[in-house]
């Protein structure tokens, strides 16, 4: 234990303000070698800001950072890398047009004797890394074409390649599903044992209690305290983050659903889905559960008109329906909310209210003109019920914290009044309190007659909100859970793994 207590990194009274907001208010913490130190707090608490400051991507207004006994007032990304700090940011920093290997070696490409980039060695070394950590990607995959979860793997691999002493992980598991999370934990444990200090951010408190030794809680940019994991419970931590008691979520009451409104028959999608047949009823939340290659996301996306269907049919309100592009399906009252919000969901340079109204501008126009005052009024209820925190109503979506961006995306969906919702991981990166609030909103929507198809990598969430769950495995529906209340997350996990 003694050797583990050496402070590897210490953050000394760091403050940082942005226009209109004090994001960090003299925050200090220490990170020991061989420690997983969790950093938790509500959306907008300042976690990502702190990570960026430690990694040199942002300059603090005041305070300093000490590593290996040396104190730095300002760090640059290059300097931070040199002194052994590696970071995986919440928003990904990979180059989409480059391959996995090129991304991992970016700026440090091995050279041949003639000074040209040695692609063969780069590829071989990347393969070695991939195998060491048992990942499923290939060195020559183009990063931009990978799904979010695998891009996350590349980002982590890139950080590991640095052989750093300090690893900063900002919500690394948010996009991952069960087995990938377990895998990530083994990896982190392995690195910890080698004496690395790991600063770990997540909104999943159970996760944190199982892998962290110490936990620091931030609230509104202030440090509330650092606690030993063995001394606290989930309830205590949640209370510290929110500043008041939050009732834990009970399972919701169920209401008998109405008529079938959407039905698929032997839906097949090239190479992804084989003969998926299911029904969605009015006033029902139908959960989809499955691993990355299960085809769940493809089912949602094909219903949204994003993937061509190879064979099989879809019936909507009793009539045959061939999705022909998103604009078409939206007109039919189907709304799709993508998981990858930065790439597919949000217009980042927009002030956030404009994102909320984008998919249903008709609601704020009169005779074809947008009425700005009506727009602000119309988004207000969504902003307050989802607790969207922003420095001002004109704040660009880009500068909101990750969780708040997710809330904007959801507000945008709620704003459209669609009849059928197709949701991909709607609470990814959202804090505990708002996650419950979103679950309430989904239940309310269901009770008012909406039908919701939800895919979530968060199994607990699926079990909490779904009326019924379809488990898919390798492109086929394998199970249907009629009463999710009787199933545990462990059981659901093993079903998604083909059990």
């Amino acid at each position, binding site marked *: 234990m003694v050797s583990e207590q050496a402070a590897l990194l210490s953050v000394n009274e760091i403050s940082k303000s942005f226009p209109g907001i004090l994001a960090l208010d003299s925050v200090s913490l220490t990170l020991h070698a061989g420690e997983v130190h969790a950093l938790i707090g509500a959306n907008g608490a300042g976690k990502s800001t702190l990570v960026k400051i430690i990694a040199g991507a942002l300059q603090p207004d005041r305070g300093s950072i000490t590593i290996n006994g040396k104190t730095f007032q300002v760090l640059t990304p290059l300097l931070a890398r040199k002194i052994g700090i590696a970071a995986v940011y919440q928003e990904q920093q990979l180059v989409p047009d480059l391959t996995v290997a090129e991304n991992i070696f970016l700026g440090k490409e091995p050279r041949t004797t003639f000074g040209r980039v040695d692609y063969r060695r780069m590829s071989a070394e990347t393969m070695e890394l991939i195998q060491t950590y048992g990942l499923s990607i290939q060195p020559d995959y183009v990063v931009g074409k990978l799904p979010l979860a695998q891009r996350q793997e590349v980002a982590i691999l890139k950080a590991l390649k640095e052989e750093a002493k300090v690893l900063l992980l900002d919500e690394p598991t948010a996009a991952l599903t069960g087995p990938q999370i377990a895998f990530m934990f083994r990896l982190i444990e392995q690195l910890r044992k080698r004496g690395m200090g790991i600063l770990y951010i997540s909104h999943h408190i159970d996760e944190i209690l199982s892998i962290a030794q110490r936990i620091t809680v931030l609230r509104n940019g202030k440090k509330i305290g650092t606690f030993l994991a063995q001394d606290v419970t989930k309830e205590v931590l949640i209370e510290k983050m929110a500043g008041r008691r939050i009732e834990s979520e009970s399972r919701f009451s169920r209401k008998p659903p109405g008529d079938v409104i959407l039905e698929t028959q032997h839906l097949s999608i090239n190479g992804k889905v084989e003969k998926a047949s299911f029904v969605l009823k009015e006033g029902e939340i139908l959960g989809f559960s499955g691993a990355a290659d299960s085809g769940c996301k493809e089912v949602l996306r094909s219903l949204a008109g994003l993937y061509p269907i190879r064979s099989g049919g879809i019936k909507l309100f009793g009539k045959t329906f061939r999705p022909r592009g998103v604009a078409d399906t939206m007109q039919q009252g189907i709304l799709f909310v993508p998981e990858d919000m930065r790439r597919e969901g949000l217009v980042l340079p927009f002030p956030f209210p*404009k994102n909320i109204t984008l998919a249903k*501008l008709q609601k704020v126009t009169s005779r*074809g003109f*947008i009425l700005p005052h009506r727009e602000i009024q119309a988004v207000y209820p969504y902003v307050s019920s989802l607790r969207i925190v922003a420095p001002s109503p004109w704040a660009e979506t880009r500068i909101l914290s990750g969780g708040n961006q997710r809330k904007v995306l959801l507000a945008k969906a709620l704003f459209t009044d669609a009849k059928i919702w197709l949701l991909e991981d709607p609470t990814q990166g959202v804090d505990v309190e708002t996650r419950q609030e979103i679950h309430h909103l989904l239940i309310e929507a269901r009770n008012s007659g909406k039908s919701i198809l939800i895919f979530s990598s968060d199994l607990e969430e699926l079990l909490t909100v779904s009326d019924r769950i379809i488990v898919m495995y390798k492109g086929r529906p394998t199970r249907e859970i009629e009463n999710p209340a009787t199933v545990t997350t462990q059981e659901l996990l093993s079903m998604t793994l083909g059990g």
Partner: protein
Amino acid sequence: MKDVFLTLFGGRNVLVLVLLVLALITGIVNPRFLTLQNVLNIMLQISVLGIVSVGATILLVSGGLDLSAGSLLSLSAYVAGLVILRLQSLPLALLVAFCTSAGFGAFNGLLAATERAHPFIITLGMMTFLQGIAIAISRGSPINGMGGLYELIGVRDFLRIPLPVFVFLAVLVSVDIFLRYFPLGRYAYAIGGNQEASRLSGIRVGRVKVILYALNGVCVGIAAVVLSAILDSALPTMGSGYELRAVAATVIGGTPLFGGRGSVWRTLLGVLLLGLVSNSLNLMGVSANLQNVVLGAIMVMAVMFQGSR
């Protein structure tokens, strides 16, 4: 330090400041600069570039670009001139000019909407293509005398302000309203900011692009009519260079090249800056070649000072 620098020199405020300082210095050096006549002169000189730049702003905001604007201007003006020369019908001439410009504009949009190539390449090709057509039908000879068009726009003024200036302001205000209050205008920003997110929001991206490029074409058509009215002639190469100066003015004004942001008022500042500088250089008797050096330097500096955010 960098922050202080950026707040002082980043954004629009600087441009206004630079404009004022520039006007003052020139005014002191050469008193003729601040006379009413010269101010009106400058306004007349910038009106055509202004109209083309407003069109360019619509495209830049949506992540698009039109390098064929100059050639299209020449072609539209020349066909209008031909109609006037042969048929002596002014309304028909205007109609033909607008059909040509809006039509080829929409065609640019159709090509851009296929997403096969960057609009830079597509419209670069169209630039050569349209210039070729203009030269071919003219066989290189200009049309002198635009008949009624000259009397209608070219020489008239209101309160001593030349009519082309009003045309420019009308285009500016209309496009401003379009971009801010029309759903299509909102979609232009959305597509420029994140095309995939726009598509997933149910926006028919291709259709919107065709309309935006067509609108840019309309602006080019208006510019063609105004320019040929001012010059009272139509030349097959009269528009060349406008496409790049329009993009320069727009970007100097502070509308980024990568889309999602910007406004026509910023573009107005950019156009004013270019106009003021060349006018004051003229008054100071700087030779044309040296003027280009100064203008180029100013463009680069202005864009650097915008900061990259």
